[in-house]
């Protein structure tokens, strides 16, 4: 039996004024299956919606087409209307006769509008109802790491009532926080103590993940500690594994050749320099200091920040002469431009050169030569200490983690954001997040934003202990599936697994929780076994069928 279709057109309060609605209504009423056609001027407003509900009920309508504004705009509102009227909210199809018809074409567009309605009618005829269900999820969160980002995250998660496990591979927490302490004046010690006493936080040190399975709401993680392995379950996983830096000295081959002339102290990293600053027992205070950055990696926020902070600190503490060699100073972090001006006002000298400086040893001191762009000539500096250029890299073990969790990394080796602009803290697998240094070169402001974003998102997902899903929105028909594994291999969200049905046959099963409804699996399945409700082949082809004037 053909389902009864009701079509509701709207002129958006007169905003759609180049469609002859009377003519349109007459034509639409003749489409097969359409038993009721209504015209409104305010369908999305309360009055319009009430009328829609009573019409659906009164005429026993089983499928609804709304021809009005874009579905991107109001589809969810109309789905609620269907629900209120007693219909399954998936039995709705919208025709975009406003943004993609009336507003972009000159003159009368009635013909196109009618065709768009026909496309929607053809589709809605085939739509199948979809059930929703709340699936239980595990409320515990695994946070991997033990530094600033990780500790901050578990403290915030605890405050919103979620229990966490902090998993650190070293024996103690708080690695990599020295620089942050000196730059921002944090007291990481008290932060770590707060973590250790918090009842909602379990701290596991000298521990590593060896196996991860499952999906959002239900991850199974095998953790190896001294003395054995444990198996735990979590609803979400947050990676805060930080970064490491490496001196970019590969471009200076002559340095290694003259190793004896250059003792370890003359060329240092930013971190080592921080230690020197903090070392009250330093033998001799360096009188001339050189800094180098921005040559190998032009996107080094962290190094720029470190240089400015350290230069200022050295100036204030020792009053040394400080020269900074760089290509550019990019001040795209909060407060960075102010820092730069402060440094200049204090007398730190910035020298701009296009090519990296040449570095040699002379009389036990480091000699730097570079062609300054403004002076147009070579500048030669002999200094007591050179704080060399550093590369900002993902922490050791990032590659291993990414294959354990099956999440991608970007071209620099940092974890790949699901969407660089809109969803930077999420991986392509639902329920796995990353924050802080392991995402790439960040400054404190951005790190704090990351942490808040993730805490909010995890709280939203897990706090009620249930997640509402549409059941079997994308499903592999076990009768047709031949277990060729293609869908499992291509799913970008890792949402498909091989399971046994009827005790023997193996077929693909798509997790309602982890699936992000892209349809890539549905398109690629060689046996056409995967049905994606709303976007099945029939539903797409039916729209093409409706286009008359091809």
């Amino acid at each position: 039996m053909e389902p009864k279709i009701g079509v509701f057109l709207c002129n958006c309060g007169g905003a759609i004024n180049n469609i002859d609605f009377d003519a349109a209504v007459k034509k639409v009423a003749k489409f097969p299956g359409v038993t009721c056609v209504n015209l409104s001027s305010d369908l999305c407003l309360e009055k319009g919606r009430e009328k829609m509900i009573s019409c659906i009920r009164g005429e026993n309508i089983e499928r609804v087409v709304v021809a009005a504004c874009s579905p991107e705009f109001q589809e969810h509102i109309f789905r609620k209307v269907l629900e209120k009227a007693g219909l399954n909210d998936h039995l709705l199809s919208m025709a975009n006769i406003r943004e993609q018809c009336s507003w972009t074409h000159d003159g009368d567009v009635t013909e196109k509008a009618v065709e768009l309605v026909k496309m929607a009618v053809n589709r809605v005829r085939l739509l199948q109802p979809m059930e929703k269900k709340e699936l239980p999820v595990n409320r515990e969160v695994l946070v991997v790491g033990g530094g600033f980002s990780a500790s901050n995250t578990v403290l915030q998660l605890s405050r919103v009532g979620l229990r966490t496990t902090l998993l650190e591979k070293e024996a103690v927490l708080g690695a990599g926080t020295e620089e942050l302490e000196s730059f921002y004046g944090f007291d990481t010690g008290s932060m770590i103590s707060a973590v250790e006493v918090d009842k909602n936080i379990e701290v596991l040190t000298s521990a590593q993940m060896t196996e991860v399975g499952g999906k959002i709401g239900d991850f199974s993680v095998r953790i190896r500690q001294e003395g054995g392995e444990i198996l735990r379950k979590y609803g979400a996983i947050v990676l805060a594994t930080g970064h490491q830096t490496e001196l970019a000295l590969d471009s200076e081959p002559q340095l290694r050749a003259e190793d004896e002339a250059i003792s370890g102290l003359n060329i240092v990293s930013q971190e080592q320099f921080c230690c020197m600053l903090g070392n009250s027992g330093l033998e001799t205070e360096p009188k001339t200091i050189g800094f180098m950055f921005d040559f190998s990696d032009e996107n080094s926020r962290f190094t720029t920040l470190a240089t400015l902070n350290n230069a200022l600190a050295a100036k204030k503490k020792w009053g040394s002469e400080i020269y900074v060699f760089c290509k550019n100073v990019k001040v795209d972090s909060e407060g960075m431009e102010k820092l730069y001006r402060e440094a200049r006002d204090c007398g730190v000298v910035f020298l701009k050169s296009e090519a990296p400086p040449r570095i040699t040893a002379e009389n036990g001191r480091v000699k730097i030569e570079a062609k300054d762009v403004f002076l147009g000539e070579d500048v030669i500096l002999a200094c007591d200490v050179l704080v060399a250029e550093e590369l900002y890299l993902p922490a050791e073990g990032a590659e291993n983690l990414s294959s354990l969790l099956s999440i991608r990394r970007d071209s620099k080796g940092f974890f790949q954001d699901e969407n660089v602009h809109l969803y930077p803290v999420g991986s392509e697998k639902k329920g796995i997040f990353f924050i802080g240094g392991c995402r790439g070169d960040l400054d404190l402001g951005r790190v704090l934003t990351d942490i808040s974003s993730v805490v909010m998102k995890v709280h939203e997902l897990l706090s009620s202990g249930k997640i509402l899903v549409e059941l079997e929105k994308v499903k592999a028909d076990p009768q047709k599936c031949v277990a060729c594994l293609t869908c499992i291999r291509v799913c970008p969200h890792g949402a498909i697994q091989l399971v046994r049905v009827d005790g023997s046959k193996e077929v693909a099963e798509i997790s309602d929780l982890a699936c992000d409804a892209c349809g890539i699996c549905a398109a690629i399945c060689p046996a056409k076994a995967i049905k994606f409700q709303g976007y099945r082949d029939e539903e797409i082809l039916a729209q093409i069928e409706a286009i008359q004037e091809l």
Partner: protein
Amino acid sequence: MNGCIVAFCCEHSAYPAADLAGKLRLHYPENIRVIRVPCAGRVDVIHILKALEKGAAAVLVLGCEDGACHHITGNTRAKERVKYCNMLLKEVQIDGRPVAMFNLSPNAPHKFVSAVNEITKIIKESGR
């Protein structure tokens, strides 16, 4: 009216871009029918072929910019399928009708409009 373009638009990029074109009252030819898909990667070769069989003058697939696909690999797969489709058409000497892929972001309505204009021009010039 001849010369219809069937355009598969992904809901994360091209569809909102087309909507934005409407909001900005940017104009483009009327002979285009948009089919909304959750990802360009949902579009299959048979959808394109059937549109051509029905008589479409051109078929477009519009998805996210390279490297920015909301579903990571959807736009790459769509591009490969469009390429494959063109090969299939060439095999049977039906390569006069454009089948093309465009990449754009949701805030680029001008890209949507220029894609439609570009293809409409090609169709007119080939005399369909």
